[in-house]
């Protein structure tokens, strides 16, 4: 018998007659505020601050100026077809990892964000690019639109498609492995800058 049949056979023998309990789903699914509510934007900002990310809040009209200001003096890469206004940015047309490693910053959008946990989700959709793009450059500038911000983790997951490769980012990478001292910025981008765009 193959290992597969062996293991499945053992599992069926071990669980014969065991019935699955009903799963109580009385935990919170929806938050108190609709997506984009200013209170959620405040909460998201507070959480990201806590993770030592930098947050800027701008209107759509202010966005181009703010992006130019943030990235002043940096080489910047954007995903192909990026709708974000940043003249002069390089486009990731399947750049080699070594090339991405030489670029100062990557500028992307996101798929959704969760205020309660300060989490930004990337799904490789428009304006986000492949996973290597938001991983190798040392700075990640991420534009979050107000109506992408939901309150709870269940609301966040409901907005995402598991068939796509997903990355949940809650602040820059960090380690506490040395005497529990938190050091922000290890292997992923050491700097996370979030630009929150309100209407």
């Amino acid at each position, binding site marked *: 018998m193959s290992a597969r049949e062996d293991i499945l056979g053992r599992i069926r023998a071990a669980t014969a007659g065991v019935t699955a309990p009903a799963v109580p789903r009385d935990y919170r699914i929806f938050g108190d505020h609709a997506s984009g509510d200013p209170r959620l934007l405040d909460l998201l900002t507070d959480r990201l601050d806590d993770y030592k990310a930098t947050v800027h809040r701008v209107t759509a009209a202010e966005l181009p100026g703010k992006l130019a200001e943030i990235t002043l003096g940096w080489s910047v890469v954007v995903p192909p077809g990026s709708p974000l206004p940043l003249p002069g940015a390089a486009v990731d047309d399947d750049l080699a990892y070594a090339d991405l490693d030489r670029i100062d910053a990557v500028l992307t959008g996101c798929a959704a964000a969760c205020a309660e946990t300060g989490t930004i989700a990337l799904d490789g959709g428009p304006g986000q690019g492949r996973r290597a793009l938001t991983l190798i450059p040392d700075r990640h500038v991420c534009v979050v639109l107000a109506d992408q911000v939901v309150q709870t983790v269940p609301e966040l997951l409901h907005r995402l498609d598991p068939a796509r490769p997903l990355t949940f980012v809650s602040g820059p990478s960090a380690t506490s492995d040395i005497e529990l001292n938190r050091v922000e910025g290890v*292997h992923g981008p050491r700097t996370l800058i979030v630009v929150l765009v309100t209407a």
Partner: protein
Amino acid sequence: MSETFLGMPAAPKGVGQLRGDADFPAAARAALADGQLRRNIGHATATIRAKRAKVVGEVPDWQQLRRAGEAIKAATMANLADHLERLEREVTARGGVVHWAGDANEANRIVVDLVRATGADEVVKIKSMATQEIGLNEALEAAGIAPVETDLAELIVQLGHDKPSHILVPAIHRNRAEIREIFLREMPGVDPALTDDPRRLAMAARAHLRAKFLSARVAVSGANFAVAETGTITVVESEGNGRMCLTLPRTLITVMGIEKVVPTWTDLEVFLQLLPRSSTGERMNPYTSTWTGITPGDGPQEFHLVLLDNGRTRVLADPAGRSALHCIRCSACLNVCPVYERTGGHAYGSVYPGPIGAILSPQLTGVADNASLPYASSLCGACFDACPVRIDIPTILVHLRSSVVDDHSRVSPEAVAMAAAAWTMASPGRFRFASRLLRLGRLIGRGGRIRRLPLFLGGWTEARDAPVPPAQTFRTWWRKR
């Protein structure tokens, strides 16, 4: 008792890390003599406990989430074979390849063969309990393949030729000066002016691993969760080394215990809330990655999922012990355990230390091989209160103790030389007091359950009934021998 699970093989001897060189009391005695170790562990557990309490306290539906997590895990186990077959179908449909490994040796063979087929002689690794459990690094090295641990703590452990001492912070037994020395000694090309500033040390690790990440052809990971209905694998991490491994190499090999499957995508909304807050005491860990098979043009283009039994079906076959498989490896039970706090992780001899290790390791190996571990506890119940999926560790400990007692002909004399453990538990007066209270419980318990316990045990019994301890407690038991 040990014959109950006939036909359900235990994790094999001679491979991997589920059995220690010495039994718990002997190993604990050595640990207790190490003041530095005790201070480091004490500091770590106290700090994480405080962080966890703060972020758990701000979740209004924490108890509902725990109950949901508990039920999802129990429901998964009830139909585990179906969920694994579904997972296999979905992963395969998306271009992944699923392998089944009955035990550590089979899993190691599968991974070694897969790496060999790529022609690579080095693999980058994300911290993974499963691959430690099966001794994958040793198997790779024996095959001439260099495994590179990329989690900072695992790197410290690997470069220090050492063993992990905690699930979450495996190098917590090392202080910054020791880490600096290890890096200076073992890290090629490291700046000789390296100081013991944690930031400088972390940046030395970053520089050391950067080139490896950018050129690695094969990565090996574990998995925190695998969603059966979608074939989606999830890895939860902090440093970004996980993302590097999961994204950059061409080939990704994930080794996952069969119990890590969850039925639906919706189930993740429960565990992604329970795990980070219980584990690191964060609202959310910095990075979580999920992937489903292969995505053309994005990430690894070859994906292998190795499903590992290695004693798990044996655990599953015991109705009184199977909930040990519900563990999501958050390490909260370690951080609240008064025994762990004094002995650290090495004393448990297994990759799984602390309260969860005391119930999981003996079940995976068979109780005779880890006979002292079910006694490595004062039964104070703090582990149950902390456990995000409500595993009733104290009751399982009592159950396993009765297996050891039933099976005492198989217990080696060493296993019952419990002097150091006794010292541990007798040291703060409250343990003696607690065990007396628990013995009293035997007199008052009706129907095998204790309804209420006084004093500090109260917090425990508010949430659940305490198991009635066996007439022979640990202390009286070891004294007799």
